[in-house]
């Protein structure tokens, strides 16, 4: 082993390719998508084609999560899958964070299916994404409920066995791509009093009787991305869609699956946040270069420089912890604490970056227009310190690992 900080050749190429794509093709459309609350399917289709044509982890983010099989540790180490994914994710969301969430594919539904699905289920639910030339498809992850956000163990959506089906009743909210998804991984409980042991995860397919889509959320930001409410009224799910099959629930698996997903996705979300923060930082740097006559002394220069430097270093700090969490994942080492650290740092740093970048640009920074996406990033970023576990939740995770005797607050 050694200490090195240079992405390998393939990673650098991927970064460069995505950056070019983000700058030249994504950014010019970004504001339109935000205002029209969505991204045209033909645009998404072009991306999918592009990715496929280039094969490899061209759109690392998407592909990284798109594989049906857990890869063995050696390949993982060799390909640095987690690292490659976060490097791509930062570039991607530097271009537009909404697009990244809209990308066709199993998305956040992938990790639980891959981690806990039976071979048959993995085959069945991943295969639909192999050819999307005719139709785009999505998978989604439905855990949050009106009454259970940070406290995932508090879910009330119920499930009971009835013959060869499971009957699900309840509501899920804030589900990314939940309405367009071909299937949602839905968490429910046999009996709240059983706590985590009572949890079950199901793959609920579009069109399942009793499953309907509630309201589509009107959000502060990420408005190109669909956030849906899912309604389950005596929704009958065939037993073969119980994730992992009956057997696997002898242990706490059900709930652990949810958690596992978080450990995998927190560095990814951190990288996305850093991408937005960096976009704001780059914008501010560019603004200063364009708007100020730097050839002569700017009275406020020193104060301005300090602001810029603070943004830059906070983002770099978050980036380094994110690299670390991902690197550990690729080493097959536990990284729960590190994953929470990078998520918490990235959320905070990126929000500060957007708040401060607007301050640097002054009134101009608050205006929405072509090539003026700063105000959009300000609207997009805030949720990155909330979903996949708020900053508070991350600190709870970290605390528990720092203080072994600490069970709960």
């Amino acid at each position, binding site marked *: 082993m050694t200490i090195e900080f240079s992405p390998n050749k393939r990673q650098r190429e991927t970064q460069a390719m995505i950056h070019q794509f983000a700058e030249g093709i994504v950014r010019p459309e970004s504001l339109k998508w935000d205002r029209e609350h969505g991204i045209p399917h033909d645009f998404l289709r072009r991306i999918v084609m592009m990715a496929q044509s280039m094969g490899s982890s061209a759109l690392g983010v998407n592909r990284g999560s798109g594989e049906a099989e857990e890869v063995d540790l050696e390949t993982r180490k060799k390909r640095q899958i987690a690292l490659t994914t976060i490097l791509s994710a930062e570039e991607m969301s530097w271009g537009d964070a909404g697009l990244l969430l809209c990308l066709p594919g199993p998305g956040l539904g992938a990790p639980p299916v891959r981690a806990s699905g039976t071979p048959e289920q993995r085959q069945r639910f991943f295969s639909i994404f192999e050819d999307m030339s005719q139709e785009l498809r999505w998978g989604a992850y439905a855990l949050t409920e009106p009454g*259970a956000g940070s406290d995932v163990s508090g879910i009330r959506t119920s499930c009971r066995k009835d013959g060869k089906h499971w009957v699900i009743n309840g509501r899920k909210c804030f589900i990314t791509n939940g309405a367009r998804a071909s299937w949602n991984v839905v968490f429910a409980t046999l009996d709240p009093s059983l706590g985590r042991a009572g949890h079950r995860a199901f793959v609920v397919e579009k069109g399942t009787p009793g499953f309907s889509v509630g309201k589509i959320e*009107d959000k*502060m930001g990420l408005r190109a991305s669909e956030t849906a409410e899912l309604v389950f009224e005596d929704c009958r799910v065939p037993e073969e869609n119980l994730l992992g099959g009956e057997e696997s629930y002898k242990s706490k698996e059900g709930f652990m699956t949810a958690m596992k997903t978080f450990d995998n996705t927190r560095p990814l979300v951190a990288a996305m946040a850093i991408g937005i923060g960096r976009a704001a930082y780059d914008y501010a740097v560019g603004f200063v270069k364009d708007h100020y006559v730097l050839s002569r002394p700017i009275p406020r220069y020193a104060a301005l420089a300090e602001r810029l430097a603070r943004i830059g270093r906070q983002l770099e700090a978050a980036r380094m912890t994110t690299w670390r969490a991902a690197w550990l994942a690729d080493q097959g080492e536990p990284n729960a604490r590190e994953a929470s650290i990078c998520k918490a740092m990235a959320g905070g740093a990126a929000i500060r970056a957007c708040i401060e970048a607007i301050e640097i640009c002054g009134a101009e920074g608050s205006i*929405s227009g072509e090539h003026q996406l700063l105000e959009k990033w300000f609207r997009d970023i805030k*949720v990155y310190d909330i979903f996949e576990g708020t900053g508070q939740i991350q600190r709870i995770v970290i605390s528990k690992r720092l203080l072994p005797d600490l069970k709960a607050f």
Partner: protein
Amino acid sequence: MIALQPTDDQKMVRDSVAQFAERTLRPRLREFERARDLPDDVLQAAHGMGLPLAAFPEAAGGSGLGVVTQVLIEEELAYGDPAAPFALGGPGAYGWAALLFGGPEQGKALLAPFVGEGAHTRVGAVAWGEPRACRDRGGMVTTAERSSSGQGWTLRGEKAYVLNADRAQGFIVFAQVDAARAWEGLGAFVLPCDAKGLRVLPRLDTLGLGAASFGGLALDGVEVSDDARLPLAGDAQRLAWFFATQGLLVAARCVGLARAAFETTRDYCEQRKAFGKPIGHFQAVAFTLADRNMDLEAARTMVWHAAWLWDEVARGAEGSDARSALLHSAWAVSFAKEAAMRAGDDAVQLHGGSGFMRDYPVEKWMRDAKQMQLCGMTAEQADQLAAAIALGRPIDPALVLPGAESQNVFV
């Protein structure tokens, strides 16, 4: 004497505004945002209460209630909807500029249209900001030149970040009169909205305060007479004075926003349960609420302090002194603006996922808070002003006044 309680008269004014804010503004703030305007009935009500003229001297047709009363009003209005005080119209910054740079007589004349019948439809605006920095010197790109006739002035250039640009009947426009004197060589000119050569630029789409209108002006050789020029707009001290007082009013609105965000969030944290108890009963959440409550108490008292100093200066009280009023305004502005940003940010944070949804007001308040930081005077400019006074340095316009190379702000 030190006393920290409004007079009975002030209480009465404040309570009636508070009622207006809670009953009329708060329930409709999303409606105003979508309409990008305040409806006529709201404007009439506000003007009926005399809010836009409260602080102006009686001699100039105002109610002469003073700055302290004004900041009490501003806090309540912003508590209802932070965008409302920006969208209410009336003389606003135009009135303050008229008095400050025109003197009592001219000021009175310019304020006249805003008094009495139908005043609620009248709006004044100040055009200060510019889109680009002047490449070859300090000061502004927009120029005012002696007309060929030797009589009057000709204005050329583009003004930006003008509050109510598309609603105002009258503007006070700042332009470079004497290029050699840079920031010291500015002039202020009164223009009617129908002046020949004056074009109002398209309204801007902003991050927050959606009900307020922000825009700009194009000046293609606008001719004005000599008496359209306000005589006292030349010196930096007075300009700092103008921006500090405008900033202080915005600071008071920041206090209102911070209070709205704090109270709404506290209530949410009392009701919302997680892990078996109200989230407010977790220390990390409770302490955040405590910190925001501290911000709020401190910001309000600082705003009161600065406002009281201005009233003392206005009535020429013994020992009163504009520099001290400037210093305390600067402190209040930077503290209140940052406090409001923290309040909006934490409000969304503690609401969790719901905070990001437009069903709740907190995401709007977070955007409004950021927008407010860019109105009147920024925290950075205020800090530069405070430091200059502390160090006994002359006030450097290039650091303290808004500009493409300090920070542009909406006026």
